[in-house]
């Protein structure tokens, strides 16, 4: 083959390889999908950077609106090595066979996680790791309301908050708001009826549905709304960024505990490196860094929350654990579609 022709062939093949995304750059980093709105920054500092320092392996945190959607739409050809999901989403992914399963020997530090929050398949394999949890309480804009005015979940139903609340999308309403409001009103996730009455009143007071973390952050800090059910870690992060007019309230009936999972899409490449990362995020030290930076509460049993974190939270870790409610996430995941349909109709009928 003439030299010139050979060079052209090499150039052509290289171009095609680059176009197909088979370049070396694509395989150099472990890609982790998380939510945006500040979540990615905490992951970068608390987990990705220290991991690289220790192992030399590059990790890139990619913020996406719905990590679970990325995992599902890329089924068969996953682009991410691991994806952050909520516990009920993890349950649905496990049920649909869309994630890799591991033995405890693959991720030995996972043994330090409270076993109640380690999701396993029927044959006892790990469906991923659970590095931390947030609690779901009421975020309040202190320019418009006092924290005491939301000491109970039922306060959200008071008429004085008409057009001054925001709620989340139906998918999260079904997983978070309904179970905790049901619990607060005497029911639970299996008996949601008492919660539906309260949720109807809350919907009547609602100005808008927030579509992303950034959206709710904006509504809260600008004072477009006075309050809304929200995640503790997000309020923590907002306050760290200087939003002194936003605070988190843990109502007297309790708060919902939302564990988060890092799962690996079925067929993802570089499984060995990903296992190392999963093992790293299961450790106490990076989880505690996540607590300081983002208010994520560690699930490693050996992690001891520093006093400044407890001060920021307004209670001790022990006090918080006494108030958190951990529902049957498997049941919530199974009921998801029916509950979403029910809640859509409930909101649609509100005057």
């Amino acid at each position, binding site marked *: 083959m003439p030299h010139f022709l050979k060079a052209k062939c090499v150039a052509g093949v290289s171009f095609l390889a680059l176009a197909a995304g088979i370049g070396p750059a694509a395989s150099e980093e472990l890609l982790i999908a998380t939510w945006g709105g500040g979540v990615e920054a905490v992951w970068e500092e608390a987990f990705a950077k220290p991991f690289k320092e220790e192992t030399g392996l590059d990790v890139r945190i990619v913020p996406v609106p719905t990590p679970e959607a990325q995992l599902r739409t890329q089924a068969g050809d996953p682009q991410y090595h691991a994806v952050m999901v909520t516990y009920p989403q993890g349950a649905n992914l496990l049920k649909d066979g869309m994630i890799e399963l591991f033995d405890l020997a693959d991720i030995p530090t996972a043994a330090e996680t409270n076993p109640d929050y380690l999701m396993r398949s029927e044959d006892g394999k790990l469906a991923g790791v659970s590095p931390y949890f947030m609690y779901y309480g009421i975020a309040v804009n202190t320019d418009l309301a006092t924290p005491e005015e939301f000491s109970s979940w039922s306060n959200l139903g008071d008429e004085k908050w008409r057009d001054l609340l925001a709620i989340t*999308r139906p998918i999260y309403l079904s997983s978070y708001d309904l179970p905790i409001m049901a619990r607060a009103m005497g029911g639970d996730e299996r008996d949601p009826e008492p919660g539906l009455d309260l949720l109807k009143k809350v919907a009547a007071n609602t100005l*808008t549905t927030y*579509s992303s973390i950034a*959206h709710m952050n*904006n509504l809260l800090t*600008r004072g*477009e709304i006075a309050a809304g059910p929200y995640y503790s870690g997000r309020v923590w992060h907002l306050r760290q960024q200087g939003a002194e007019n936003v605070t988190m309230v843990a109502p007297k009936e309790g708060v919902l505990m939302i564990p988060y999972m890092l799962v690996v899409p079925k067929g993802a490449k570089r499984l060995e490196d990903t296992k190392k990362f999963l093992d790293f995020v299961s450790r106490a030290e990076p989880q505690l860094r996540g607590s300081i930076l983002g208010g994520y509460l560690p699930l490693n049993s050996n992690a001891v929350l520093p006093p400044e974190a407890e001060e920021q939270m307004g209670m001790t870790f022990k006090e918080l654990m006494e108030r958190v409610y951990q529902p049957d996430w498997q049941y919530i995941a199974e009921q998801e579609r029916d509950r979403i349909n029910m809640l859509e*109709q409930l*909101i649609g*009928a509100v005057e």
Partner: protein
Amino acid sequence: MSLTDQAFKKKMHGPGREVWGRVLLLAPAMVLLGLFCVSVVQLIASSFIEEGRLSLSLYTDFFSRADYRDIFLRTIRVSMLVAALCVLLGYPVAYAMWRYKGNRSHLMILIILPWLVSIVVRTYGWMVILGPKGLINEFLAWAGLVERPVRMMFNTTGVVVGLVHILIPFMIISILSVMLHLDRRLEEASASLGARSYHTFFRVTLPLTVPGIITGTMLVYLMSTGAIVTPVLLGGVRDRMMGTQMYQEVIQTFNFQKASMLAFLLLLAGLAVVLPLQMLERKLSRFMDQRGS
């Protein structure tokens, strides 16, 4: 040169070459069109199949729910309103641009400038202006005109304002492109026959620019029916539209069959408006051709 070579050359330079040239030029478009048609058929078919059998259950479920019927009707109502407002606001702008004596491209840059900014950022911009803590409400409160903020967003008004802002350039460009092809001598003829300027506008210019209005209306209406970002960010809790519902089914609940059903209904809602408008456009063109001849 052999005889075969000559025959080949003759073939490649004769009428056959022209035909082959056209076929080759059309091939990429045909592949795209084929893929599009197959996808649309597959999309529609999946909404009629449940557990491997033909079924209308998704459609009956949809129309049996009052909230879904509201979403469907709201989508059509809002899209029509947005299209009408775009005509009312866009026509004078297009007319002024047509009349402009200077460099029209500078004005065109102003019209399309907002497209350089992300739709999310533009929509957030409206929150800063129309929100309960926005510029207008702050001014009204400062002036002592209102005690409570006036609701200008997180309701249908907000959605309509946001969509008009985003889609009006399409209307302006559609109308202007027709105006630029108008023969200005028609206006002169009208004036020389004693018609006043408003008579000339209503009896000559406006009828001749109706095709631009119709094209713009179709574009704006169709894009409004599928809007997602604006209804999500500027709408209230009861302002769901078909686009937002489809987004939820695809991205959050992964119910692709339901999303296909919603897409098909949206397609029908689009056709119900676009087909009559196209017929009207054709009739008008024929009518004007007859009058012209």
